[in-house]
């Protein structure tokens, strides 16, 4: 009994039922507040800011916008400004100052179709280099934006002429360890994962994991790329060891089947890059720990280095709802605190205990 209580516990601290469909929830850095983004039943978008007070959620602000909002990030803004970059159903990228939300700080019609995923890098005092935002859309393109350049993206990853396009479902920044290097990883609905190197403006690696890729994330954005987790439909996720790239085999990976349904999200713990949580389509959360192998590289037949993938252990799992948990975000300030939202129109604040002893 005691050994089961020594495992990290996932405690649903607060649950709040909302009156709109919530797609994404993010912590506001350096605060006990978070934003929820979604769309009302009347077809308009909404951003709500909540604060945790004495075990309850207080609504601090509600902002309504014309188009439903699919995703948002604080990744590309400074800690003082804390502007929220959102992508909406219309394909527009907007950066909002939440104190004065009437007019966006930066706005551009980024894509022709809905922006499925957004990520930011270079802000919040993490890492070097220019703050940039990447958006991935149903029109098959992935574009990188800089808020100092209006109307045109700084990088555009689009299908070649005549190629049938596939929806891009997820994007993530990584490998941003100095101010020139940066990588963008994009996952598509046909199972393609592509890694773009922005320093060389080229495709660095691609692979296909057969099922549509719902979420990709590097374990840290601001280091030499170490691990990448990609989750997909049909309950599988893959952990790639990104330190060693083999010329033909690419990166080594280990895959795990969990959740028995789509794995919607993966998020790494900001305080420990080997612990991550996956959110599933049956309303359950699994907490995993990655164990490195004894040797991370080995030589293959031609004496070329290739990577060795480690193993993944399930630490804890909990079922919170019957509907998929669509978004998950760890608080960068308090270890173990996270907010998740699900399609049963509710948002939950969770506390995961004992992460420091795991």
């Amino acid at each position, binding site marked *: *009994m005691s050994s089961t*209580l020594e495992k990290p*516990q996932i*405690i649903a*601290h607060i649950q709040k039922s909302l009156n709109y469909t919530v797609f994404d929830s993010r912590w506001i850095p*350096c*605060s*006990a507040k978070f934003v929820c983004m979604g769309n009302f039943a009347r077809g308009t978008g909404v951003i709500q800011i909540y604060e*945790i007070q*004495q*075990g309850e959620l207080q609504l601090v602000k509600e902002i309504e916008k014309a188009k439903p909002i699919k995703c948002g990030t604080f990744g590309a803004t*400074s800690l*003082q400004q804390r502007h929220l970059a959102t992508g909406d159903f219309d394909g527009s990228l907007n950066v909002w100052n939440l104190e004065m939300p009437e007019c966006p700080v930066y706005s551009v019609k980024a894509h022709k179709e809905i922006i499925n995923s957004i990520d930011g890098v270079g802000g919040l005092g993490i890492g070097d*280099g*220019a*703050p*940039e935002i990447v958006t991935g859309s149903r029109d098959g393109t992935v574009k*990188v934006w*800089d808020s*100092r*350049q209006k109307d*045109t*993206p*700084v*990088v*555009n*990853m*689009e*299908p*070649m002429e005549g*190629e*049938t*396009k*596939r929806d891009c479902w997820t994007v993530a920044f990584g490998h941003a360890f100095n*101010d*020139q290097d940066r990588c963008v990883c994009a996952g*598509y*609905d*046909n*199972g*393609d994962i*592509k890694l*773009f190197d*922005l320093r060389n*403006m*080229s*495709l660095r690696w*691609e692979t*296909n994991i*057969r*099922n*549509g890729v719902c979420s990709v994330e590097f374990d840290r954005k601001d280091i030499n790329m170490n691990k990448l987790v990609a989750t997909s*439909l049909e309950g599988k996720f893959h952990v790639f060891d990104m330190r060693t790239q083999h010329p033909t085999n690419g990166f080594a990976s280990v895959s795990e089947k969990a959740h028995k349904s789509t794995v919607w999200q993966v998020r790494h713990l900001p305080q420990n890059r080997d612990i991550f949580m996956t959110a599933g389509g049956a309303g359950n959360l699994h907490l995993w720990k990655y164990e490195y192998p004894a040797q991370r590289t080995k030589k293959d037949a031609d004496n070329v280095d290739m990577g060795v993938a480690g193993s993944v252990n399930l630490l804890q799992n909990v079922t919170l709802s019957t509907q998929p948990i669509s978004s998950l975000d760890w608080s960068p*300030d*308090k270890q*173990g*605190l996270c907010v998740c939202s699900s399609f049963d129109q509710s948002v939950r604040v969770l*506390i995961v*205990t004992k992460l420091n002893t795991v």
Partner: protein
Amino acid sequence: MPLIVRDHTWTQNQNTVYISVPLKGVKTANVHVICTDEYLKVSFPPFLFEIFLFGPINEEKSEARIGNGVAVFTLQKRTDELWEQLFTNIDKDKQKHIREQAILKVQEKEAEKSKAKATRIQQEKKYALETMMKLENEERDRIQKMKDEECAKATAQLDFWRETQRKAAEENENQQKLQRTGTNNNQLVYQKTERANATPAVTLLHNTGNTTSGQISRKQKPKDLPAPRSAGCIKISFTPRVFPTALRESHVPEEEEWLKKQAEARRAVDTDLAELSDLKEEERNPDWLKEKGDKLFMAGNYLAAVNAYNLAIKLNRKIPALFSNRAACHLKLRNLHKAIEDSSQALELLTPAVAANAPARLKAHVRRGTAFCELELYVEGLQDYQAALDIDPHNVALQADTDKIREIIQGTT
């Protein structure tokens, strides 16, 4: 008939009677005693000893010790008196009556004892169950308590952290306010020396105050951001598949059917014709004939092209391209009905409708539509053009033609 034992011995005192009955070698296990207040019977087959006591005894307090080849009965008298003799002489009926009573009594006692035992067992079971439940509840409560403690601890930590955050934010604000008031004071002095009019100075003051504090904060945290990246474009291609649809949206059964049909069409060469003997080897190949027909069509020799296609169709009736191309020839030759027939035939062969045969279907629809329009059957023509537009919505020429036909229809009706 049991053997009656009469060689018993007895002694008595004021309140007890001691009777000793020899067991005559019978095992103690086989000894059976029935004792009531006035009657004692010891049966140890094949022997029997019974006695009708002189006075009443207290059966509960009496005891029997059976062992060592003898049964010793210690009977407590009800009344403290010395008995003249051990037994009373009573007549047979009474004896019988007493015997029966004795047996009944014993039975009752047994029944009571068994009932008492049953209830006792029941109670004990209940008690055991209750204690088990209590233990389990305790265990559960203990675990729950530990969980609640964890939760409370985590909440307390959260509140504490939030408080520190808030305090830090407040301090920051205070500092900024101090800065602002500091700059305000400077500005105030400056403005007063410059202008006499106080009111606009005050409003200007606030604005300049804010901007200077903003500038100061920006100066305090300088960040040399690199310039925005020079625009780049990376072209990508997606993993090729036989059919460019993902597993989850594949029309696999339809696509398989189409592939099978194509394969069959290749194989279905009808070589059972008399005229074939006149033909050269290469002229028996429908593909070669199709190419020949295409070349003749390009050159403008439509009749010859039609001949080539005819022969090819005779050899293989299953290739839709032959019908479609022959329809194009007929269109050029203005054999409109034949063109319609051939494109209909081609469309039939192009089922099931998959992405792979979309261009072929498009062409067939357009040719048939054109033929209909030439025959002034504009409605049917419009249907075909609409179908073609469905396959390829972005074709500008198609859209223009469709609109033209629509106008004509609306013009004539």
